[in-house]
């Protein structure tokens, strides 16, 4: 194999394993472009500000009801140049999609188009108030309406609730709609069935909605055990929550059969749509008996992950659940005017289960997602799914000869390839492989999830990687995996070259230090 890096670097130019540490120490602790940065509270000052405002007039009359603050708040400020430098230096200690391949399984780290950012910042979208008179925000209501139309069409579902703020909030929306539908017919059900391979948010959501959660096992081929699920169905089961494509990267091919069985006992089918990006524009989940499914706009529709949000989790709903959708929702009058249905529209609001958030949902994400959809169109979105699945299968088939791939025999994977740590030797683990990949310049895959595979490594390339980038990753992944298979002790101390070595996470939890105390 040729050297994977075309920059002129050659393996024989490599320093000793601890080569970086053999150079002379620096006075600052910096290493050229690798810059240490103190905490804001160590460099900021209480009397410095980066914003020009009139000085406080201590004698000005106030109407604060005698509650004027007398104590210092304890904040510190920086001027603008210091602020920009502080956060720019911090940013350089982060890995992002813009920097390189980020195959974090289930999280769908695809390229975030910059047109999305530009459109979301148009004052007509960014600078409008959620309670502005509806005649002054017709364009905003139309964006939500159009996006809802795209989501319904792409999923083959009749209705959509737009307000949920992220995937887990969308799950909650779906489960509450299910609960409301059962309540409406006086049917108090207590149990939600969740496959053991599910995201942790599924059981947490069901419990948050006061359901008892029961696990459904997976088959050896990585899918829901249909027989076990059917055996458990009964009049106490309110719903099943199934992720499709599932977290093992496989399509639940018996989904329709499961849905029919659940419906036959009066239950509903919640589909976790976190992995919709594998099938968008190619497959309509609505044709498989889904009653509710959330869609992570920050996964399938390319809105940025932002270091942990904001997300956005609209939920498509079947005819059976649509009447219970949360407020507010948007309707269009015959004359074309859009309007909000809120608490006061007593006739139109129907038996809604209530309100999940103060306003209308993640408008800033709606504008970005709609921009992305319009860019790709029906044909482009189909290509998105195809390329995402192609890339994942290419990685699966390029690794399976050396790395344990528990479901490789189950057929093609969808958008992500799953591996396990079964053949690692000398006590090496999935964690060590992840840290080794950091040294190679990659963000690691998702590790130790799903729980059904020992030492799981879930690799999701997405469709926005070139073949060259994927080939280079495969070369690096094979090299690091080989070290784990051969028992290379050195891997246990990786990463060597990141801004930080491995962290003392146990110590962090034992004596939590959660705020600056200087």
């Amino acid at each position, binding site marked *: 194999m040729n050297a994977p890096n075309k920059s002129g670097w050659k393996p024989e130019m490599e320093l000793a394993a601890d080569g970086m540490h053999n150079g002379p120490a620096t006075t600052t602790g910096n290493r050229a472009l690798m810059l240490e940065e103190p905490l804001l509270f160590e460099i900021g000052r209480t009397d410095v500000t980066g914003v020009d405002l009139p000085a406080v007039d201590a004698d000005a009359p106030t109407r604060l009801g005698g509650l004027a603050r007398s104590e210092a708040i304890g904040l510190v400020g920086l001027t603008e140049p210091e602020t920009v430098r502080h956060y720019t230096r911090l940013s350089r200690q982060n890995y992002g999609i813009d920097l390189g391949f980020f195959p974090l399984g289930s999280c769908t780290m695809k390229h975030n188009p910059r047109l999305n950012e530009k459109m979301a910042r148009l004052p007509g979208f960014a600078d409008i108030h959620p309670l502005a008179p509806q005649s002054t925000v017709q364009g905003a209501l139309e964006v939500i309406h159009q996006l809802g139309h795209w989501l319904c069409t792409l999923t083959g579902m009749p209705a959509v609730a737009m307000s949920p703020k992220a995937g887990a909030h969308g799950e909650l929306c779906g489960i509450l709609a299910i609960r409301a539908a059962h309540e409406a017919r006086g049917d108090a059900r207590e149990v939600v069935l969740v496959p053991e391979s599910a995201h942790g948010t599924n059981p947490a959501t069901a419990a948050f909605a006061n359901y008892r959660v029961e696990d459904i096992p997976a088959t050896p081929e990585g899918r829901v055990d249909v027989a076990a699920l059917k055996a458990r169905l009964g009049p106490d089961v309110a719903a099943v929550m199934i992720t499709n494509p599932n977290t093992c990267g496989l399509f639940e091919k018996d989904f329709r059969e499961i849905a029919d069985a659940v419906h036959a006992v009066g239950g509903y089918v919640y589909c976790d749509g976190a992995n919709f990006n594998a099938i968008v524009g190619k497959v309509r989940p609505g044709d498989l008996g889904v009653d509710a499914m959330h869609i992570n706009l920050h996964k399938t529709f390319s809105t940025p992950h932002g270091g942990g949000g904001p997300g956005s989790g609209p939920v498509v709903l079947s005819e059976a659940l649509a009447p219970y959708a949360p407020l507010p929702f948007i309707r269009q009058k015959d004359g074309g005017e859009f309007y909000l249905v809120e608490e006061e529209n007593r006739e139109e609001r129907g038996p809604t289960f209530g309100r999940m958030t*103060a306003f209308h949902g993640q408008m*800033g994400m709606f504008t970005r997602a709609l921009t992305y959809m319009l*860019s790709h169109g029906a044909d482009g979105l189909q290509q998105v799914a195809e390329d995402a699945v192609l890339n994942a299968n290419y990685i699966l088939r390029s690794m399976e000869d050396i790395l344990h791939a528990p479901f490789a025999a189950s057929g093609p994977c969808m958008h992500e390839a799953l591996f396990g740590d079964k053949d690692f030797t000398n006590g090496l683990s999935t964690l060590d492989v992840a840290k080794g990949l950091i040294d190679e310049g990659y963000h690691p895959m998702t590790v130790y999830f799903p729980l059904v595979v020992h030492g799981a490594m879930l690799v999701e390339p997405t469709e926005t990687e070139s*073949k060259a980038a994927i080939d280079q990753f495969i070369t690096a992944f094979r090299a690091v995996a080989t070290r784990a298979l051969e028992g290379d002790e050195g891997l246990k101390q990786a990463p060597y070259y990141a801004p930080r070595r491995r962290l003392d996470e146990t110590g962090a939890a034992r004596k*939590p230090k959660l705020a*600056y105390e200087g």
Partner: protein
Amino acid sequence: MRYLPLTDTDRQAMLAKIGAATIDDLFVDVPEIARLDGPIHGLPMHASEMAVERHMKKLAAKNMAAGDVPFFLGAGAYRHHVPASVDTIIQRGEFLTAYTPYQPEIAQGTLQMLFEFQTQVARLYGCAVANASLYDGSTACWEAVAMATRVTRRKRAVLSGALHPHYAQVVKTMAHFTGDTIADALPAITPDPELSGLIARIDEDTACVVVQYPDILGRISDLSAVAEAAHAKGALLVVVNTEPVALGAIKSPGEMGADIVVGEGQSLGVGLQFGGPYLGLFAVRDPKHVRQMPGRLCGETTDAEGKRAFVLTLSTREQHIRREKATSNICTNSGLCALAFTVHMTLLGERGLRELAAENHRLACIAADRLAKVPGVEVLNNAFFNEFTLMLGGKPAREIVRDLADRGVLGGVSLGRLYPGVEALEHALLVAVTETTTEEDIERLAQELEACIKETV
């Protein structure tokens, strides 16, 4: 297809490696009935950047941007000036295109920022510990009630009548499903909040009492007596703040004895954005409550070489570890909005925040005095920060807001919209004033308001 790097040659080579003849061979596990033959019907085909921009701009142009007109809306979302450098920082790819810092060795930027954010929020609220953010103020409010029920093992929450009605609605929606009891009320139209009635509703079964500060009518009052009354009955005080800038001028909730302080952080760095994404803030005064908190927490630790480092911690509270026993189902929160808040707060600092708050209050006082001179208008509040309630003569306030909009003035939020069908509140108008409001804007509102009221009497 400008976002898709694979060429057809690549695709063929990759299919060959996989051993598949066509791409559809990879979708064999999908039942026929759900598979589409070609591009889905009813949606347009792909479009150029220029064409998409044209489409979106047309939609944006149909909205009246707050910056283009005299603007006085608040009620939980405030328009403040966001320094240009905030947006520059949050658009850096290393922040924008990162995710939850699961691999701390290559996420110290996000983690250190979150540690700074948690410290800023905790200090602003007068608390010991803040989390790394929730979705928004309203969902944070429910999370606070849920946490109080866990801490006290009681199932009843008392809501102040002057809590934002949408927040109350979110709490009631959730409580219906969890089986908790919510005692709520309508706001009393009085110059000062009615705290004695609220205190009387706290009983031995009460998990928490929830009070907004400043409240939905813009009023402010000392909550120490509510804290004492709640604590005497073994209940927690939850204080909700929807305008963090206010805390640059008035006492912190923690100082007054609040146990959990939650709020909306949108005022700093985030912007109006038609209601989202916003920034849920969540803090506790007593560190012993930390393990019952929802959401991510960032903590300080060291790496293998002894260097200071930051990491997500106490994860055993969270869904990805504890599953159905987690303190909340939240996963993705409001990371980038937290960064915007922190950068804005860093630019302000102690001095800037105090100056910003003073400027908001100064202009609000000018507006209140000027509007009180309009015939048929009375200012309800004795005390306020940057938002107050007007009682209007003539038509219901809701219609006056629409008339004002027709005249090119976004004049406030009518309580009729927030409390539909409540006759006593029909003539109340909530007016917010920030540093972005000019004295000319105030004059214009006064004149247009006078004209609108005159038309109707």
